[in-house]
């Protein structure tokens, strides 16, 4: 359980598609001309990595919210509301 957004576990989950993207040219099916369903394998692979990125970030987001992030978001919202009210009051005084 961690309320730190960039916890080692969450970073590890998010790193999977990142590594898949960085090392794309080294993959055997990109290194040699390969086609899947009439499409270049590199295009299919990159599409899969983009989708995997979205899935990984959704998992990370849910884990963060579940482990205390939702409460931190609520506190941030309260603090921002106070700040905006102070800002409006300061602007009002200015007029």
């Amino acid at each position, binding site marked *: 359980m961690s309320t730190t957004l960039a916890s080692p576990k969450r970073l590890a989950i998010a790193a999977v598609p990142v590594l898949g993207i960085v090392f794309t*040219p080294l993959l055997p099916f990109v290194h040699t001309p*390969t086609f899947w369903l009439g499409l270049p394998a590199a295009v299919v692979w990159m599409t899969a990595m983009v989708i995997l990125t979205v899935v990984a970030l959704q998992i990370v987001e849910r884990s963060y919210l579940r482990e205390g992030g939702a409460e931190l978001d609520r506190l941030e919202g309260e603090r921002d509301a106070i*700040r905006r009210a102070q800002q409006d009051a300061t602007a009002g005084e200015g007029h």
Partner: protein
Amino acid sequence: MLTTLIILGIVFIGVLGVWTRKRQTSLSGWTVGKRDLPRWTTWFLQAGEALTTFSFLGLAGIAFGGGVAALFAIGYLTISCVLQYFITPRQRALGANRGYLTMADFFKDRFGSPTLGKTVAVVGAIFLIPYLQLQITGLGLIVQLATGSGQASSYSMIVASVLVVVFVIWAGIRGLARVAIFKDFIMVTALVVVLAGVIAGVGGIPEVVEKVNAISSDYFTVSRKGFDTTFWITSVIVTGLGAGFNTFPHLWPPVLAAKSGAVLRRNVSWLAIYQLALIIPIFAGLAGILILDPKTKGNSVLLGVAQETLPEPLIAVIAIGGAAAAMVPAGAIAMGISLLVSHNVLSIKNPKLRFRINHLVVAVAVGLALVFGLAKSDIAALLLLTYGGLTQMAPAVAFAIARKVRVGGIPVTLGILAGTLTVAIITFGGIKTGGIDSGLIALLPNLIVLFAAEAVRRMLRPGQPPVPPEADEEFDVELRPREAVKA
């Protein structure tokens, strides 16, 4: 007829930026509003970097010459989404608590170093100018390719530049947001039109792939000259780091203006999907191999394919989409440059004078870019130069977002200067790097100088904290909210 349609489209984009928006009267309101931009407004501002003139012109050109290596753009933009997910909410929270308006404010405050703030502002403004020029040149090129008229190109560049200055000065971040929404809709429409044209005029995706493969199978590996494995890995790392650590000064206002960190997190967690739209210009570039002269310039490929496959009114849609793709980033970049200059470099204390000077800098920056825009430039090369230079701020961002800053401002400043100087020497000195991105090479001297200077600082001042107490976050939470509001 085509020229008139395009100019009308450009004017429409400009009018959208000022229409029904109250004129902003303070630098803070102009830059970040009340720091309460809702999710979808923030989405379109954040998405701005994905669909630019580079997507329209540069990317199809890379696919035309380098085949699937052009997918590197989807790669670095996706990686930047992952990094931004973790980094931008923190930058936004610090900005809201401490009243930042720019990236340079963030560095100045976190390291307690005005020198660093000014260095970042100067480096940021310098590297943004070619990026601004790129957008305006790109716009002119799109119109020229669509209409075949050099005169129409010049007119459209002038009209678009004037309109960008007007809507940016008038409405600031909110005007930009309105135009950004239109931009994304028209660009996606334009890309679908391009795809339809290619399918109708050249063939379906499998058919095009088969025909290109018959010419050379190299197009489907990352191995063509100039677009090999080294190019891919180093460019993806450098550009991913640069965009992911938010080292582009013009991308800070949307982050600082967002309603909450949660809004930023939710947006970037989905934003990667957007990058898939870039497969269309890459596909158009591949189709270009079949129907265009092999000597066709890279930047002309997408519109060349469109001209071969589409009727005139649809070319206008593509050209207006391209114009919007230039005008939104141009507006954001002009805002970024003007803020850095008026707020950080000149540090004008009088709020009214600072706001006026800021407006003047918007006009001067866009005017300069317009003048420089008459000289034709290679879009992809310029973009990579900008990314390489600005990425030199990534190590500093990494240190600055930590709860406790553990290195001093001077070592960080020296590191950034060493890195940027290295990028400039490699780029302007024409030094061969064997395909390795100059920005990645420059990170090495950057980090060496940073750590060496930090070691010297620790030797000279043992036991002394690297940053002044007021730069500490705990100090901020309890004591500074009212001060931050006034700033």
